[in-house]
């Protein structure tokens, strides 16, 4: 997959962003606020058309949103008027899948995310972490080629977040999906990113790219053990410093303007 990306109006949200992702890769994108992470994701999802450049998936151009690219949103974006079961079965229903086949998929996925006892509940009765698991299951039910995650764990508390990170890694390994994950937690980016892209703002561009071993290590392992890995702390400090500098630069610039 390849993008050459572009400007939006007078603001250059993204400039010369080019990424090539292989099937089954887990990419995390990190950057200070305003660096165009969400714009990038919206373009990949097909909600925005780039002003310059192209995106290709499996050899065809991306023109708009499609079931081949599933998306998980920060707040879940679940349909609160449907039960958990109907939420997860939404994608298959839209395709007109027979209900028996659909029920199998839904049951299986709810087992995977550990919500088999909550099938008939309304989504607003679930906790934030559970809602996010429903959102993951809903996305997987459609069997997309690529899963796009826009700070999916951002709204969760620290403990739930850690559990969800393990779940994401487990699902990634089990399903072999290609995943693009946007986050502004450095730890999360390190833990979940097989590849990690640090973006810089104004205009949004790729600042640095890493290949990391932690995601592989973290599959079926205790993530806290992974964090004790000697390289982990070094990388974390390095990236934190990088982002810190960028934030300083942004602040400086706005102060000069003012």
């Amino acid at each position: 997959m390849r993008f050459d990306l572009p400007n939006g109006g007078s603001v250059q949200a993204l400039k010369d962003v080019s990424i090539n992702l292989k099937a089954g890769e887990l990419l995390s994108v990190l950057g200070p606020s305003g660096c165009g992470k969400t714009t990038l994701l919206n373009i990949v999802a097909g909600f925005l058309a780039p002003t310059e450049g192209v995106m290709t998936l499996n050899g065809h151009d991306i023109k708009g949103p499609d079931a081949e690219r599933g998306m998980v949103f920060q707040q879940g974006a679940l349909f609160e008027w449907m039960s958990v079961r109907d939420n997860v079965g939404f994608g298959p229903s839209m395709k007109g899948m027979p209900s028996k086949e659909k029920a199998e998929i839904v049951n299986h996925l709810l087992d995977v995310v550990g919500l088999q006892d909550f099938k008939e509940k309304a989504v607003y009765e679930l906790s934030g972490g559970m809602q996010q698991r429903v959102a993951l299951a809903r996305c997987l039910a459609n069997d997309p080629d690529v899963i796009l995650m826009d700070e999916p764990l951002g709204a969760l508390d620290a403990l739930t977040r850690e559990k969800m990170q393990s779940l994401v890694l487990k699902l990634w390994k089990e399903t072999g999906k290609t995943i693009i994950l946007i986050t502004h937690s450095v730890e999360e980016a390190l833990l979940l990113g097989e590849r990690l892209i640090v973006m810089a703002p104004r205009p949004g561009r790729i600042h640095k790219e890493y290949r990391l071993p932690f995601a592989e290590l973290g599959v079926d392992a205790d993530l806290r053990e992974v964090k004790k890995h000697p390289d982990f702390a070094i990388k974390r400090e390095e990236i934190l410093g990088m982002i810190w500098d960028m934030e300083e630069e942004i602040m400086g610039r706005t102060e000069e303007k003012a």
Partner: protein
Amino acid sequence: MTGFLVLAVYVAIFMVAAFIFTRIGTGKDGYTALKTVTFGDESAVRPNRAAGIVSILTLFLLWGMFTGSKYLPEFLHAPAPFAGETSFEYTVEANGESDTATVAVLVHNREENPEKPAIEPGEGFAKNDSIKVAQYRSQLVSFDKNDEVKKKDGAKIVAINGTPVQPGDKVEIKGGSVTISDKGTPNFAPDNGLQMEPLYLPSPEAVIERTGKVLDEGFRGTSLLGHLGWSLFRVIAGFICGAVVGIPLGYAMGLSNWFRGWFDPIVEFMRPVPPLALIPLVIIWAGIGETGKIILLFLAALWIMAIAARSGVSGVNISKVHAAYSLGASKWQIMRYVIIPNSLPEIFTGARVAMGVCWGTVVAAELVAAEKGAGMMIMVASKFQNTDIVILGIILIGVIGFGIDMLMRGAERILVPWKGKG
């Protein structure tokens, strides 16, 4: 004067009840009881149940007190208007002589029509008189009608009950007062007490009695339920028409630039126009029949429903729409499975408002012109001074309006349980 007294009694009951009931119960239960500071904590404020009951009882108490209801013990009544017999003496001077005669007065209820008290003419050139007066009215006493010396011959009243008087003076007597008019005729006015005249405020039992009567006999050829039924029918018909047109219109305005541009000026202009202001125009165009009323209610509901549906559509969280697109939904599927269910809570809120407005509008429209309906009932009753029917009508209109809102809320709880939980 009576108004201030009513207010004073009301405030007194309020304060005494507050004093008593806030000491009996703390008004706090469970968790709230453990809070040390509750002032400014909205969640700790619960309606005091005793206050609610006492409040309603107080209204009925005041109503009974100031109408002399027989449901209340006598001692609670406000001073009643005088009724029964009384009398006063007048002294006439004519041609240098003076004579005294008595006027026997019978003060009676307005509903009754008794005979004047029987009297002896008495001695002297001034003869005794007899009059009857209805409560709350007054009566000129043509004292010289049977006297030997008439007013035009120089007869002149110089004293009432021995008190010397001039024209314009007023003398208090038992059960009322006598005023000498400019022309020298005494005018008797009985004491009104502090109670309301039934014409202004009938007693509770009169209203209840009238309710039974109207239930049995109907009012102007239609039963009570018939009147209310007609009003309800108009509301429901108008509301349904308004919703059937308004909701799709609102959706179109929420989904299409062209529709929004086209209808925005119309909707924004019509929204602040009170439906009541349209009554004359609707009557001119459609007459006073059912069509006119339903058109009016249709117009009342239309804009509210259109705006509710529009804001229901604009209230859809964009990430839900995006989620549905990336799950492979088509435009129609987004409409059917995302936009419509997501806008239902807003539409229900709009429907509640619209039903309330329609109910108010129908009563007002019936006040102007109708042959049947709750509004027509109170309008006609007021013309015939049947205040009890007016009050009955007002109570029924209030109860039905409240009932409609309760039903809508219940329907909302059952049909859109996800309201406010997105």
